[in-house]
């Protein structure tokens, strides 16, 4: 075991060097991949049949996946490629007083260092451009990137990031969405208000509906912040050609929007940018907007070399979007035979530090919040607020899993109160073909009842089964008061 006495730059040992150092060991280039698989493939029958629709056809990428031959971003290398790492804030809210990158820049192997002042247009976002590429004056959440380093190895880039000295004036973060909702709470993005989007749905007359009800029942529900956890972390490679055109290989799920956002942050026309997405190793909504693409593009421009970055698993948690936590208050009036007469509800979404896909999430949550039920009298209001937490954005279901948890828990509470079977109360109220949705849309191809009945049959649901929960506490019934609890 010999030790390199003076490892200035622990650059990756190339295969050629290996051959030179140990002559005689190898009889072929090490770089030849040790892979075998049949090139002539038998095509599965379901892929050959017509008509094609309805076939259990195997996936186009199924063979490659199984062989380990699908090429993800991190499996790609280019000659001279550098590796980038980003130093993140680590504090939720702060003013950046100074950034000293001199020590990092002096490290052997470091090729370029980038801060927010190097970014031509340092803000982006799908609906509100409130997110910096690299935080420069202010930190809005702990995962904000501040300095990026490109170096010959990942390790050097990581160590250089640690050598950057950042002086913060730490500010009190706003962490509670209900606190943020209050007008007197300081704005996370002052002078912008903390409530950055609102949505209302009014249908019929809720007060009249409550008056016609035999019972009024309330529910208060909250959900947590969740990460997408794609197994493949965010990864990007950026490189420029001699014509001044940028090519970016990225794990983006939406290359069209990604190109527009990337070009806009760089201040160049979209025609100067090519984005290629490979097969992406899981998205679930977390890879729908650019993250490090502008940083890599700028590092690549500075160095004239391809630059790659792959998020570490912690990066994936702190620097990508997450699922919105919701605070949900429901109040429903029902007749004693189980018909919903009126529903009033309020949703508060924790929007995190940046808007991202909050607008869509807010809308979908609000529109879907009453459930797949015919409710003549409905009032729904929904707010999304800034906090100094990890930004929340698109995630599989856009607010729907949260409101479904609320409206379906609430539904079972109503069933319990009325001593009805959960299946029956749903069947009584569920949408049918031609039902009018809360937004007044006439619905088509509606099969809620069919799905209820089929699931019940498949499960073996029988009314007697509900005795399993005997001794339940009845949900608290209220008889007066119409305000929804905050």
């Amino acid at each position: 075991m010999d030790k390199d006495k003076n490892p200035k730059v622990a650059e990756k040992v190339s295969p050629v060097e290996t051959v030179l150092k140990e002559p005689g060991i190898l009889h072929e280039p090490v770089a030849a991949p040790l892979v075998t698989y049949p090139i002539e493939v038998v095509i599965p029958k379901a892929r050959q049949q017509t008509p094609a629709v309805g076939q259990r056809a195997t996936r186009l990428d199924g063979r490659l996946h199984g062989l380990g031959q699908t090429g993800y971003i991190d499996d790609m290398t280019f000659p001279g490629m550098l590796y980038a790492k980003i130093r993140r804030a680590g504090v939720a809210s702060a003013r950046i007083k100074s950034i000293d990158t001199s020590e990092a820049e002096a490290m052997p192997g470091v090729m370029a260092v980038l801060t927010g002042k190097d970014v031509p247009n340092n803000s982006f976002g799908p609906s509100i451009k409130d997110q910096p590429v690299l935080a420069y004056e202010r930190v809005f959440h702990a995962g904000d990137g501040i300095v990026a380093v490109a170096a010959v190895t990942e390790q050097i880039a990581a160590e250089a990031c640690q050598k950057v000295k950042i002086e913060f004036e730490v500010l009190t973060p706003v962490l509670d969405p209900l606190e943020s909702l209050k007008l007197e709470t300081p704005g996370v993005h002052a002078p912008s208000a903390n409530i950055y989007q609102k949505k209302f749905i009014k249908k019929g007359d809720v007060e009249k509906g409550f008056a016609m009800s035999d019972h009024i029942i309330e529910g208060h529900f909250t959900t947590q912040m969740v990460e997408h956890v794609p197994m493949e972390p965010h990864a990007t490679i950026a490189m420029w050609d001699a014509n001044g055109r940028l090519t970016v290989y990225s794990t983006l799920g939406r290359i069209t929007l990604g190109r527009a956002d990337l070009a806009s942050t760089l201040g160049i026309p979209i025609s100067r940018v090519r984005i290629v997405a490979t097969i992406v190793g899981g998205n679930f909504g977390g890879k729908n907007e650019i993250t490090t693409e502008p940083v890599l593009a700028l590092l690549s421009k500075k160095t004239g070399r391809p630059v790659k970055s792959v998020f570490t698993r912690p990066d994936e948690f702190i620097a990508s979007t997450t699922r919105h936590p919701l605070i949900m208050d429901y109040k429903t009036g029902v007749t004693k035979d189980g018909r919903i007469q009126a529903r009033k509800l309020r949703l508060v979404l924790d929007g995190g530090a940046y808007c991202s896909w909050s607008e869509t999430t807010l809308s979908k949550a609000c529109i879907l919040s009453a459930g797949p039920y015919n409710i003549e009298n409905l009032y729904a209001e929904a707010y999304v607020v800034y906090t100094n937490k990890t930004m929340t954005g698109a995630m599989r279901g856009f607010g729907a899993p949260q409101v479904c948890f609320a409206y379906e828990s609430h539904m079972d509470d109503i069933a319990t109160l009325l001593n009805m079977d959960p299946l029956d109360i749903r069947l009584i109220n569920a949408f049918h073909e031609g039902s009018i949705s809360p937004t007044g849309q006439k619905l088509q191809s509606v099969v809620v009842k069919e799905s209820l009945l089929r699931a019940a049959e498949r499960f073996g649901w029988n009314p007697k089964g509900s005795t399993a929960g005997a001794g339940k506490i009845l949900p608290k019934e209220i008889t007066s008061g119409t305000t929804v609890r905050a």
Partner: protein
Amino acid sequence: MKKRGRGMACMWYPIGFTVAANPSSAVVKLDEDGTATLLTGTVETGQGSLTILAQIVAQELGISTDDVNVVSADTDATPMDTGAIASRTTYVTGNAARLAAEKVKLMLFDVVAPLLNVKPNQLEAKDHRIVVKGFPQRNMHIGDAANHARTVTGEPPIGSASFNPATVALDPETGQGKPFGTYVYATQIAEVEVDDETGDVEVLRIVASHDCGTPINPMLVEGQVEGGISMGVGFALQEEILFNANGVQINPNLTNYIMPTSLDMPEVEVDIVDNYDPSGPFGAKGVGEPTLVPTAACILNAIYNAVGVRITSLPATAEKVFNAIQAKRNAEPKQITA
């Protein structure tokens, strides 16, 4: 003691963006052997959407799934697409792909009609051939038809199309409007076992009955439902990003952020509800996101059914369930035990 319970939840979920335009374009080109290439700007992020799109194009052209090659996700080569988001690929990109393939097909009908002495509308594409309806023996191989178009008619068999779901903006005051093209529906029923001494919840079984319009590929629909349920199990019982008092995450790793392993997954039974939506490609809608929407709700209802406690904040960790059981016991009138 371990107590069993069951709970159901149903849901509705829209396909595509809320009101906002979310168009997809697609290009289909037919080669001389009658196989096709689809160019799409959407990205395969694991759902199998490229396979679904290939099946849609194949169906429209009367060829097989394997006859369709898909080129995707390169802004230099592929047309604009709003992307793999909002359960929209099958419905929106699928419609665009079908319309693009239809253009190619109609072009071939025009080319083949005089050769077979019929009108274009008397033709159909099936089994790799352009066939006179009702007279299957009168036909031309689709590859020959494509060649004829190229060499004789001088028109390359290439079609392109765009699709954007029809929506009506919502009134800002009342929220009235038509935000989405269509919706899907589903019910899931869970059976759980709750250890009333520890609050530990084991999800034993979930039956999932999902509408996706026409299932373009039932095997991939099942895969979406099964995967959605695993995410739903995590949402219901395990997963939570936690912050310290200063707003810094304390569990940003897979050691301490608890998501389901193979040992945490229930038995899953997937049922696809027969349905057809006239606005979707071959009646298809979508299935990606809705698969996890009712999972947490049905599990939480099953916990209630098992031990009589209503957990109102997710995730329903064992500790939360246990504390609720304790609170319920303390609230109950004391009984004299034998």
